[in-house]
């Protein structure tokens, strides 16, 4: 197997930057190239602000031709390229390479076409997730994946991370809602993957591209599937005095044959934080579940009755239902504000993202309590309970010596617990730079080498987003010491799930 050059091994030539800027100037307008430190500083990190790095140059191309020209130049000069959407990612996937170009797709903002009868939307990658649903709303259609950052994050970034959201339990992730991509390869060649048909001949390259964290190609256009808006929606809020009862209720709902559109859990600490912040009117209990049911009017009515019965079986203390948009919004407002609300209780917090099989919810909750006790750090829990995706928020004070390190170590232990439970180190935030060490735990060397092989199949030069996701042999050897990077959230005020 051929191994690619890794980014720290790219040699820096003193006049390389000048040569690069000169060549980029031939294909881009002056305003599309940023090379001064002040101008580049907004691009030095993504949502994982603990990791910062200025690139050599930031470029903002406006069309496919320019993207291909930039890639050809970089390929020719062997300069690494990191692609960036809105920069809301939480795992450092868009962290620039010091000796590389940061390629921002921010100017690709057009919704090119919506076909209401065929239920597809053709969009540029810099289009914000929410604006697709907004544009489709007049046809009573929507784009299903709804990551919490949907007001800011772009579809290009969603494809890179295979983003999910609250409703992916029923409607799937980005990979389930994507039909076709136009991609610029590192050599500056345009290719099309997938089509508006439901499948394509040969290997499923669309599956590989989705969630590839910008390492295989640069998406310049995407065609996504739109779904009909449900006729009826109801959110049921269930309050429990015992968190393990809430955990068991989650499994029972699924076992009863109901597939909720969303099924979320919050623990006592997050409820308290949220109440103090947005006054959503949540009961102050050990745990609450928010269960969203949608579909035909008849189905929702029956399912609401059925989940009420399940909750009763699991010693629910109180149940509330929200049938109209206003009260549904209030129920969700607290959940959506959970991250910033916890941010108000603690000077710093570290948001983790792991998944476990649903049946291990009770086990993981106990383990988290134990971790909190032994570390002395409080952990607030917000779960996409329906699909076993955890977001423990580890609260700490970076100004207290050693606390950040401690939080990082607790975070790493949580990920190891997820693996022990049969889950994954990342449900939706991606590996990026943040979790590259834990990749050594989730996969063996042979699997990691094949990931590298997949990357090289698309990008033989290894120049696209190098050094991310796939750890080197050396890194895995060092990981024993559990040195894990962590970070704080950029846009801490933004609603996140």
């Amino acid at each position, binding site marked *: 197997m051929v191994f690619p050059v890794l980014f720290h091994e790219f040699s820096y030539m003193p006049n390389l930057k000048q040569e690069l800027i000169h060549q980029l100037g031939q294909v881009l307008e002056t305003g599309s190239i940023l090379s001064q430190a002040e101008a580049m500083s907004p691009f030095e990190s993504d949502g994982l602000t603990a990791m910062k790095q200025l690139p050599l140059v930031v470029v903002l191309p406006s069309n496919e031709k320019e993207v291909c020209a930039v890639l050809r130049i970089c390929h020719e000069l062997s300069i690494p390229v990191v692609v960036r959407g809105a920069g809301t990612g939480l795992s450092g996937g868009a962290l620039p390479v010091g000796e590389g170009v940061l390629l921002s797709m921010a100017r690709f903002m057009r919704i090119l076409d919506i076909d*209401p009868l065929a239920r597809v939307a053709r969009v540029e990658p810099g289009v914000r997730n929410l604006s697709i649903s907004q544009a489709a709303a007049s046809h009573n259609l929507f784009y299903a994946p709804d990551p919490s950052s949907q007001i800011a994050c772009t579809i290009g970034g969603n494809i890179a991370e295979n983003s999910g959201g609250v409703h992916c339990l029923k409607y799937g992730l980005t990979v389930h809602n994507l039909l076709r991509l136009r991609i610029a390869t590192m050599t500056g060649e345009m290719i099309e993957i997938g089509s508006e048909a439901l499948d394509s001949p040969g290997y499923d390259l669309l599956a590989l591209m989705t969630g590839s964290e910008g390492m295989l190609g640069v998406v310049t256009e995407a065609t996504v599937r739109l779904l009909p808006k449900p006729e009826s929606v109801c959110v049921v809020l269930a309050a429990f005095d015992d968190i393990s009862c809430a955990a068991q209720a989650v499994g029972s709902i699924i076992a009863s044959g109901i597939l909720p559109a969303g099924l979320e859990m919050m623990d006592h600490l997050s409820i308290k934080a949220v109440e103090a912040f947005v006054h959503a009117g949540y009961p102050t209990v050990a745990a609450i579940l928010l269960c969203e049911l949608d579909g035909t009017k008849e189905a929702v009515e*029956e399912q609401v009755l059925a989940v009420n019965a399940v909750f009763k079986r699991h010693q629910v203390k109180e149940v509330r239902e929200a049938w109209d948009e206003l009260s549904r919004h209030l129920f969700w407002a607290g959940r959506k504000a959970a991250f910033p609300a916890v941010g108000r209780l603690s000077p710093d917090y570290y948001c983790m993202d792991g998944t476990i099989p649903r049946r291990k919810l009770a086990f993981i909750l106990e383990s988290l309590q134990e971790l909190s006790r032994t570390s002395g750090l409080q952990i607030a829990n917000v779960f996409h309970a329906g699909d076993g995706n955890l977001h423990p928020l580890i609260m700490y004070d970076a100004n207290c010596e050693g606390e950040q390190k401690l939080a990082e170590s607790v975070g790493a232990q949580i990920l190891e617990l997820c693996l022990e439970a049969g889950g994954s180190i990342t449900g939706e935030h991606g590996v990026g730079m943040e979790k590259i060490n834990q990749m050594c735990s989730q996969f063996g060397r042979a699997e990691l080498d094949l990931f590298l092989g997949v990357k090289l199949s698309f990008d033989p030069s290894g120049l696209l987003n190098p050094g991310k996701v796939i750890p080197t042999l050396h890194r895995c050897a060092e990981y024993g010491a559990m040195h894990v990077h962590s970070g704080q959230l950029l846009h801490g005020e933004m609603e996140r799930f």
Partner: protein
Amino acid sequence: MDILIEQFSERIRQARLTGESLRLQGGGSKGFYGEKFVGSLLEVANFSGVIDYEPSELVLSARCGTPLVEIEKLLAEHGQILGFEPPHFGETATLGGTVACGFSGPRRATAGSLRDHLLGVRIIDGQGQDLRFGGQVMKNVAGYDVSRLMVGALGTLGLLAELTLRVMPKPVHECTLSLELSAKAAIEKMNHLAGMPIPLSATCYVENCLYLRLSGLQREVDTHVFRLGGETILDADQFWNSIREQEHRFFRDAPFLWRFSVPSMACLDSFDEPGLIEWGGALRWSVADIPACKVRMAAERVGGHANLFRGKQPDVPLFHPQSSAIRAIQTRLKDQFDPDRVLNRFRMYSYF
């Protein structure tokens, strides 16, 4: 059972050393599907059995040789189904073969394809390495999605040893309606209905009739049956079975069968007869005797592709030809998973 994994690995390693090719086979029910069958037979049907099934998790893991009927029977006992409603094409159909072929049935357009339901795999690659990708959880973005890459790869990238799938609750009630329509009107109707919030679970147009299957709770199905009108079909299960298994008289005795995968609203004007239409218009079957180049041009013109699903024609590749750029990437992928071309050589394309 792990002893079998070791045996498979050893057999692949040995074949690699001697430059031999291996032809992987499960139940042998899909021997009609694929380009060429070369090399020594490696049977995997004895690697069988459900490994893990927890109904409340909606997840099932099984070995490749597990018969599909066994899996579907087990799921039925717990009120669950395989959401993609796979065709069997024979009693001996196994899970591994189904995943390798990537076959989905009538429910595909609304519930998703086999690939959408696959969560994880254990494979043995062309170097005899025992590898695991994906897992048991719905949300998992650690590393590239190698599991889904295996779907429809016809075993050319690895021996699919163990597979983990998402399963779905079985709809409480189903009802199928038939409406007499022209093909054009039927395609429009299928697309129109797919954009409405109704519990549609399958569509099919054949012999001037559009068939609509509604699935869900009794009350919602009844409401929409009433609203949609048309005639209720009595032997609906048998009808959908005949479409899924290609036992309907449309498929019978045809020397070849073209499978068009096209945008759902596509208009294939160059064909005199509409053929059989499924998946809300996105899947069209044709038994017409038309030269392959015309078939493929027609499919490409509407942004789709056409595979020769059954039957062979001289000098006609079964699978739609790929662009040179895509072909290069796919060949490099093959190089990574099976550098010495041990696994199912030439089964998919003549270049690997």
